[in-house]
């Protein structure tokens, strides 16, 4: 499997603030990859760098091109939805479709109109008259009708209610993803995308704190609700995170054989959300 994104030692500073401090990121073609991180971790900067909207230092290749020098060519193969309502508010829905049809060689107008016919979005309304959920639906309807290799989503469902959020990801998975396309999603709502992801990347303080395939997580990370009498043994195995759980202590371990952990208590595979918390706290202590 080839890689659609290859980034090595990406750095970006805003004054004294290091937004990216040597990001190494590899995303294989066909992956649905999550880029998860707390506020200010560098997610948006990293995603903007991937589509040439932000000048970064380091090696970067997206769909075989350098986004810093070939953005407009790259955007024939990449689509992007940002975390804010960025569609121009003065456009009518039909005018926006006309525009995208006019400028994008891989846009299929009929597909967008089909998607929109299943929504309550009227073609003659201006964007500023639509609710945030409708604007996101509209943006998704446009993007889904563009035949690209890579879709980059930066907090696409931020501020939407649960119905719109669920519908967004359902449509993305059922109507858009075909196994060949690659999707990179950055979001806070980890639980909602956990089931979609094939790859996971945590970013914190401008660095990648974890990068793994979802199928490998269960082999690498183990959560153990440790029996009280086994606490000393558990501490000795260098857990990356400890939390209180219903009066007991739950330990998260990295790369410790399950056979070694089994005697300590009940073992689980941590959820992405729990792993996220564990890794973020772990990276703060490093």
């Amino acid at each position: 499997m080839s890689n659609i994104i290859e980034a090595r030692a990406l750095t970006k500073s805003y004054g004294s603030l290091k937004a990216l401090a040597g990001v190494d990121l590899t995303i294989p073609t066909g992956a649905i990859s999550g880029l998860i991180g707390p506020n200010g971790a560098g997610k948006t900067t990293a995603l903007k760098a991937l589509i040439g909207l932000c000048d970064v230092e380091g090696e970067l290749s997206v769909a075989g091109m350098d986004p810093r020098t070939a953005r407009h060519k790259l955007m024939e193969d990449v689509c992007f939805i940002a975390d804010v309502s960025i569609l121009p508010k003065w456009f009518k829905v039909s005018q926006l479709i006309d525009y995208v049809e006019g400028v994008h060689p891989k846009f299929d107008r009929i597909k967008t109109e089909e998607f929109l016919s299943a929504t309550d979005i009227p073609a003659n309304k201006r964007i500023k008259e639509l609710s945030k959920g409708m604007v996101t639906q509209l943006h998704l309807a446009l993007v889904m009708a563009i035949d690209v290799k890579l879709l980059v989503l930066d907090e696409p469902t931020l501020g939407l209610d649960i119905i719109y959020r669920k519908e967004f990801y359902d449509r993305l998975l059922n109507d858009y993803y075909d196994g060949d396309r690659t999707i990179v999603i950055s979001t806070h709502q980890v639980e909602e995308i956990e089931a979609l992801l094939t790859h996971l990347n945590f970013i914190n303080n401008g660095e990648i704190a974890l990068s793994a395939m979802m199928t490998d997580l269960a082999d690498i990370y183990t959560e153990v609700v440790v029996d009280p009498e086994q606490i000393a043994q558990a501490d000795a195995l260098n857990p990356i995170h400890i939390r209180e759980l219903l009066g007991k202590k739950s330990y998260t371990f990295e790369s410790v054989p399950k056979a070694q952990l089994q005697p300590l208590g009940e073992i689980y595979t941590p959820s992405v959300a729990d792993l996220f918390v564990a890794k973020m706290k772990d990276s703060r202590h490093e």
Partner: protein
Amino acid sequence: MNKFHLLQFHALLQREILEHRNMFIMAPAILAGLILLFSVWAMTRMGQDTVSISIEYMALLFDGLSPLEMAPIFMIPAIPFIGIFYFCAIIYLMNSLYQDRQELSILFWQSMPVSNLNTVLSKLVTIGMVAPLFYIATMFALYVIALFWLAILGWSYDIEVAGLGYMFLAAVASLIFVYLSIVTTALWLLPTIGWVVLFSAFAKRTPILWAIGVFILVGFLEEFIFGTQFLGNFVQSRSTPTQYLILDFQDIVERLINYDMLFGILVGSILLAGAVYMRRFID
């Protein structure tokens, strides 16, 4: 440039017109409406004798003139339209690469496969060539209404209105001159346009203050360091109103092909290249 690129550029121009329809379509339409209302009001206050004398005076004024010779007189009513257009053009250029950064829609525009060069070019073509057409079309409608009205007045007051056909041709010729004047002005003022667009791409807020402030600062530094006033003289040499008017087809060749014009185009192009470069990254 293949067919798709032409269609893409057409879509970019269409976007500019739709986004600025108030400046390019509504503003001249409202001005024309006001002129018509004022004219009707003025005519109702004039007696038949005054109207007759005015029409006869007009016939005398145009007597023996060809449409091309009459055209400069027909350009006079275009002055308020040109004034409004230039006012709108300044606002348009100031906001051209600034407003979308402010409202974050730049993230959408930049997510489309459109080069920054084409984006900037589309804005220049819009303001220098396309938007003036809407003003010209409105003025044409106004002239047609005026001539039609003149014919009705003549018929109702039983006055012979001579040379209506010539007047129509003169009106058309005057509008062609107005259009060519605006296009020539855009080229003549390309250094100014480039300067404004550069700061529109650069400024995080109030691009007009940046554009004026930096110009004054650079002019001051030039005089302070080198003891020269090249910048001030350069602007002054391009600020005589008669430089912008085309009153004869012969004028166009003289205005377009001369050292000053070509030098200005070169300076403007360098500044615009700077604006294209600034547009590359949005942070």
